[in-house]
C-alpha cells in the first residue's frame, strides 16, 4: 500500500529525514514513536505530499508522490489525516465539517453527504453533536469529529499525527477506542503516538525514530522489553514511567 524508499528531506541545510525505508501493507497498522523533532510528523506529511522531499521515493497505492505529474489533490482523497490540534473549521458545525469535502470533491449531494456524515458520527459515538460548532465540543469530541471528517472521504489509508497529545487524560480513551475499532476493521493506518497501550493492542509494526532515522523497529511487545539501541531504551524509560 505504501512504499518508502531511501527518503531524505532537508529544511535548508538541516536534514530532517535520513534514508527512510518502510513498507506498509494493506490493512496494517504501523505505530511511529520517537522524541519530538525526530521527523515523525514530517514523514507523514511527505506521504500525502503536504511537504516536498528531495531524495528517494514514496509510492502510495501505486502512485509516486514525488512525481511532478502526480495529482496530489486526488492522491490526498485516498489518505485521511488527523492532526494533533484537531484543526476543525471553526465556522462550520460538526456536520458541515464532515460534509464539505465529500460535497466539493466527490460532488455528492447534500443529502447523501449528510446521511454518510451522520452514520460516521454514530460510529464515533457523538451523533447528538452534529449541529454543534467546534468551540462547543470537548477536545475528545472534536478529535472524533476530525476522524469522521477524514473517514467521510472513504480513504484507503488513515494517518494520525499525535492524535491524543493535546487531550486531557480522560478523553484519550474515547479517541483511542475509535482508532482501535478502525484498525481492527482493516484500515491501513500510520499512527504517530506515544500511547504504548494502543501500540500493544493493534500495531503490526512499531518504528522508533530519532534524528530523522528509523533506529529501531519491531513487530510486537518485545520491542519494549529489550530495545537494541540505547537511545530507544532511554526514550522508552521516559514515556513508560
Amino acid at each position, binding site marked *: 500500500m505504501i512504499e518508502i524508499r531511501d527518503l531524505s528531506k532537508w529544511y535548508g541545510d538541516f536534514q530532517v529525514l535520513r534514508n527512510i525505508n518502510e513498507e506498509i501493507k494493506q490493512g496494517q497498522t504501523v505505530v511511529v514513536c520517537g522524541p519530538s523533532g525526530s521527523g515523525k510528523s514530517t514523514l507523514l506529511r511527505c506521504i*500525502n505530499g*503536504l511537504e516536498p522531499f528531495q531524495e528517494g521515493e514514496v509510492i502510495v497505492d501505486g502512485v509516486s508522490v514525488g512525481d511532478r505529474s502526480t495529482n496530489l*489533490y*486526488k492522491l*490526498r*482523497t485516498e*489518505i*485521511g*489525516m488527523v*492532526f494533533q*490540534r484537531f*484543526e*476543525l*473549521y*471553526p*465556522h462550520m458545525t460538526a456536520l458541515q465539517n464532515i460534509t*464539505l*469535502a465529500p460535497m*466539493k*470533491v466527490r460532488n455528492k449531494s447534500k443529502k447523501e453527504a449528510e446521511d454518510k456524515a451522520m452514520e460516521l458520527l454514530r460510529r464515533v459515538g457523538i451523533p447528538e453533536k452534529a449541529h454543534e*460548532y*467546534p*468551540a*462547543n465540543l470537548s477536545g475528545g469530541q472534536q478529535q472524533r469529529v*476530525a476522524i469522521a*471528517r*477524514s473517514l*467521510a*472521504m472513504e480513504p484507503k489509508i488513515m494517518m494520525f499525527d499525535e492524535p491524543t497529545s493535546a487531550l486531557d487524560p480522560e478523553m484519550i480513551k474515547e479517541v483511542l477506542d475509535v482508532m482501535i475499532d478502525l484498525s481492527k476493521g482493516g484500515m491501513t493506518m500510520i499512527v504517530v503516538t506515544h500511547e504504548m497501550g494502543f501500540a500493544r493492542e493493534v500495531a503490526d509494526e512499531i518504528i522508533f525514530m530519532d534524528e530523522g532515522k528509523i533506529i529501531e523497529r519491531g513487530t510486537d511487545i518485545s520491542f519494549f522489553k529489550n530495545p537494541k539501541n540505547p537511545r530507544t531504551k532511554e526514550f522508552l524509560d521516559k514515556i513508560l514511567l
Partner: protein
Amino acid sequence: MGGFWITVKLTSFALLGGIPLGILVGLGRISKKKWVYYPVTFYVNLIRNIPLILVIFWFYFVMPIIVGRPLDPFPSAVISFIIFEATYFGEILRAGYQSVSKGQIEAGYSTGLTYVQTTRYILIPIAIRRMLPSMITQSIVTYQDTCLAFVIGLPEFVRRTTIVDNIEVRSIQLFGFVAILFLITCYISSVVSRRFEVKRERGY
C-alpha cells in the same frame, strides 16, 4: 446640519476608497514577492507613524506644489483619508489572514480540497469573521476622525458648528448637540459590532 451631511459624505468616500485599497495593501503585506512586500510595508509603516492630522495637512499643502494648482478641501480630505485608512484596513486584513491556522488549511488539503476550494470555503470565511469586529471599529474611528478635516477649512460638522457658534454664542447647546449626534451614531454602530463579537465567542 449641512455640516453633518459633509461628515457623512466624507466618511462614506473614505471607507469606499479605504477598504478596497486596504484589501490591496493587506494582500501586499502577505505577499511573498519581495518587490511587492517591501514597498507596501514601507508605505504602511510610514503612514501609520504619522498622525492623521499631519497627513491631511501635508496632502493639502504639498499636493498643489506637485500638481501645480490648489486643491479643493473636500477631495483633498477624501484622498488623505483613503491613504490613511487603507493602511489600517490593510493591517486588519493581514491579521485576519494570519489568524487562520496553517493546520486548518492543511486539514482542507488533506481531505483532497484544491487550493481554490480551500481558500474559498475555509480561509476566506474564517478570516472575514475574525476581521469584521475590527473593521467596524475602524470604520467608527474613521467617522469620528473626519472632524480633523477642519484643519484645511473643510466645513464638516464640527467646523460648521464652530462657525455658527461664533455668530450665535451658544457653545454648550451647539456642541452638546454635536456630541449627542456622534454618540448616537457611534453607539448604534458599536452595538452592531458587538453582535458580531458575541457570535464569534459562541464559535461563529
